[in-house]
């Protein structure tokens, strides 16, 4: 077995040098890590699992990568090797990303971006790598389906000073402030995405389409009491029928409040507060404004 | 103080808080 191991590692190296990532991974996965014949320590086992997963991820093969990362998950908690543990985290985040579990991926990326050490084992952590992880966190959060947890992560990222230096910051700001994103902005954002983040979904929308249209729909619901599907289609840059279809699904899934008048082809956004509560809020806002003026006057000694 | 005057001017226009028919019914 020792000789087989050496041969497999050598071959894997060759494959790697020729960027044959999957073949290299398959070559290494042939090593029997659970053999009873030889004593194999957990660190070696862990390093092999992580290495194989990384190779599969080079070819965006989330399924195979996940199998080895799952194996590694039993070993990672008791390793002392920080570098290995970091590689494991990065692999896990990327697998979630590839599997379009964007919100979970975002949380992992964000966690990685907060590493404060500059040297882990032999590996030097450079600022650019952390920035990449942070940008990946922002991208995945924007692509995730709207909901309370996504809003919380958006708020965390928006208030994180490091994000203001990212190229993607303007989009993050608009998404956080629930502002409508225009087509040029969406196209610029799309250029930064990886292929799997632009993949076509069964309903012929891409991941990006759906995220952006749903975001814009929610933003429109903050601006309009009601709007015709024709105008909504223009606003969203899609056909009115498509707009109606997405709106109806969001309302059914209780991710947006509203009702659709198909005869008039109009959607009524219902504010989640009844009229009287809206009145209360307005009066509350008025009192606050009055207080601010009084504070301002006091400050100026008037 | 111009700034305060502008704020007061804005404040005074916040009433009535809501003018929609639906609200009038509710309020009555």
């Amino acid at each position, binding site marked *: 077995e020792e000789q087989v191991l050496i041969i497999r590692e050598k071959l894997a190296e060759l494959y790697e040098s020729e960027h044959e990532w999957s073949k290299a991974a398959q070559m290494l996965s042939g090593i029997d890590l659970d053999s009873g014949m030889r004593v194999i320590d957990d660190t070696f086992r862990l390093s092999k699992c992580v290495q194989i997963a990384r190779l599969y991820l080079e070819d965006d093969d989330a399924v195979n990568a996940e199998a080895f990362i799952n194996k590694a998950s039993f070993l990672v908690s008791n390793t002392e090797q920080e570098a290995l543990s970091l590689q494991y985290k990065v692999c896990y985040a990327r697998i979630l990303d590839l599997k379009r579990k964007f919100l979970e991926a975002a949380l992992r990326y964000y966690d990685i971006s907060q590493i404060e050490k500059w040297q882990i084992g032999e590996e030097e952590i450079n600022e650019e790598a952390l920035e990449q992880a942070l940008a990946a966190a922002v991208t995945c959060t924007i692509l995730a389906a709207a909901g309370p947890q996504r809003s919380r992560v958006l708020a965390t990222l928006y208030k994180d000073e490091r994000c203001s230096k990212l190229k993607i910051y303007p989009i993050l700001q608009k998404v956080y*402030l629930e*502002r*409508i994103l225009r087509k040029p902005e969406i196209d610029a954002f799309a250029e930064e995405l990886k292929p799997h983040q632009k993949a076509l979904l069964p309903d012929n929308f891409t991941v990006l389409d759906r995220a952006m249209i749903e975001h814009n729909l929610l933003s429109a619901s903050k*601006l*309009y*009491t*009601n*709007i*015709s599907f024709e*105008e909504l289609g*223009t*606003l969203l840059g899609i056909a009115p029928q498509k707009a109606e279809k997405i709106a109806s699904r969001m309302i059914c899934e209780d991710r947006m409040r509203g009702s659709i008048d198909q005869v*008039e082809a*109009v959607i009524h956004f219902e504010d989640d507060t009844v009229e009287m509560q809206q009145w209360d809020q*307005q009066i509350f*806002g008025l009192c606050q404004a009055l207080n601010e003026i009084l504070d301002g006057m006091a400050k100026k000694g008037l | 103080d*111009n*700034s305060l*005057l*502008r*704020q*007061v*001017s*804005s*404040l*005074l*226009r*916040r*009433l*009535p808080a809501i*003018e*929609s028919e639906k609200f009038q019914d509710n309020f009555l």
Partner: protein
Amino acid sequence: MDIEQKQAEHIDYFVKQASALKGSALSSLVVEATSHPSLFAFSEILSVPNFLELEGTEHSIFLDLLRLFAHETWSEYKHIANRLPKLVPDQVLKLKQLSVLTLAETSKVLPYDTLMQELDVTNVRELEDFLINDCMYVGIVRGKLDQLRRCFEVQFAAGRDLRPGQMGGLIQTLATWLSTSEDLLVSVQEKIKWADSMNEIVKKHKKENEERVEDVKKTLS
């Protein structure tokens, strides 16, 4: 941060600039100030002596222009455009934003037709894009667009510089608020007293009832 806080530092900047410039040099400052994306008030700048000195000189049109931006609207500019400098696009945008604030002074529900006429806009999409991008997202107004009723319902509108003579109205409204609030408080006080007295009456009545029940019980026993 509301619009007043945002523009305070810009006002300071332009006031300082105006204090250091004279005569025709002020013209470029006027263009810069009236084009600035975060500045919607000009009274402080207008009260700089260097500006006031422009009165009656060949450069007075810049003083007139600044006053226009402080108090007037886009349609008023069109009426006297031949006597004023030509505006750059940013100035036109600014004047239209200020026009919305002026309209919001008189009504909380602004019909699309009125807005389109005032702002020289030909279709609903263009009007709504302007209200969304250049008004609501800038923070000078907050409200809801209603396509069925074709109107913009204003919840909040930033204050513009007061026009000469507007102070009286302001004070009058405040006085009305004050008296209405005092009346309201008095009536609330009365209602509280009334509720207390009713409460007392009910308690007394209840007590009497209980005593009567007791009496009847005793009699029966």
